[in-house]
């Protein structure tokens, strides 16, 4: 098992050395499988050499049920978003990760968005 894993790693490094940019330009940008519904690939302006995966935020109506999007792959469970949520819409699970127990309390102030050091949470309204 471990041997096969090592060879896989070596292959990955080999492709990096050749300088070819992989299609998504990324090892693991955001967990696409989990968030597949909300994801689009946008091509950036002329200066960008790679395709950037950006979470798409659905516009109408949806934000009342899901006021914030949380990318658990990037989250480090520091608890800042929960501590500074002014209305208590966010809560913490037993492992420290944030979730939204009271979506109706969210006032879309985007405090969590500004203070997240890992870009792991974003408001869904705008």
């Amino acid at each position, binding site marked *: 098992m471990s041997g096969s894993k090592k060879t896989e790693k070596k292959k990955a490094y080999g492709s990096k050395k050749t300088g070819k940019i992989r299609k998504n330009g990324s090892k693991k940008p955001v967990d696409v499988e989990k968030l597949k519904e909300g994801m689009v690939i946008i091509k950036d302006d002329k200066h960008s050499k790679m395709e950037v995966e950006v979470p798409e935020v659905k516009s109408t109506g949806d934000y009342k049920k899901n006021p914030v999007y949380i990318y658990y792959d990037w989250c480090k469970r520091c608890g800042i978003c929960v501590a*500074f949520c002014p209305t208590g819409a966010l809560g913490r699970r037993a492992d420290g990760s944030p979730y939204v127990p009271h979506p109706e309390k969210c006032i879309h102030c985007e405090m969590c968005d500004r*203070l997240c050091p890992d870009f792991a949470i974003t408001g869904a309204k705008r």
Partner: protein
Amino acid sequence: MSNIPQKQIHKYLRHDKKFPHVWCPGCSNGIVLGATIRAIAELGYEKDEVAMVSGIGCSSRMPVYVDFNTLHSLHGRAIAYATGVKFFKPEMKVVVVTGDGDATAIGGNHFIHAARRNIDITVILINNNIYGMTGGQYSPTTPDGARATTAPYGNIDRTFDICKLAIGAGATFVARTSAYHAQESKLFISKALEHKGFSLVEIVSSCPVIFGRLNKKGSPADMLKDMKDNVITEKKYNELSEDEKADKIPRGIFVEEQVPEFTATYTDLVQSLQKPKDE
């Protein structure tokens, strides 16, 4: 739909680098990175217009993750490299991201002389009161009495006031804010980028894993709450008595003035000397 802040940030990140980034849980560097990207996105600079230079340290890991022209240089020498970049390409916006130890201890001379010259560089100085990356040695900004790995019974040195140092050295834009005031950080950084001349934005930040643990400051959120209470506006700070001032830090724009800029003066000099002789 077009103004989603998070969407802006994702546009400016290098997604082929390993995410989530290398900083510890709750480190303020990520907040400052977010504020910087928002400021640049709001000003509408193109990615090729901006050069981000850094030295060594936790904060200096920042250029790795952003998709501008970036330069990761020697310890303390970020401003020296940035001077070179600015001199060769005067139209480029040069941003130096540096830490407190990087800029004021090891690169102290570069810092004061760049300020004296008034070269058009924006320095974002993230002050976390300690050398975080190398294991928690005390830095010039470690508060009096605070513990560090190399000061287990408390630091006995006096603290460096970086903003006063920059004002004394002749910087033409000096501002201080904290990582908790993320929106204000964005505002000050965008003002500093637009300013012609040497501009310094000191951002008081937290190191929850080393400084916070050694000094029993609590969780990352507690450290940010401390910042909210202790980093107060200059007006409020001046109203306090001497005793109350002890553990408070003023924030705001301290200096904003227009003085001839170094690269512009140099270009003028070269042009005046290159005039044809027969005139």
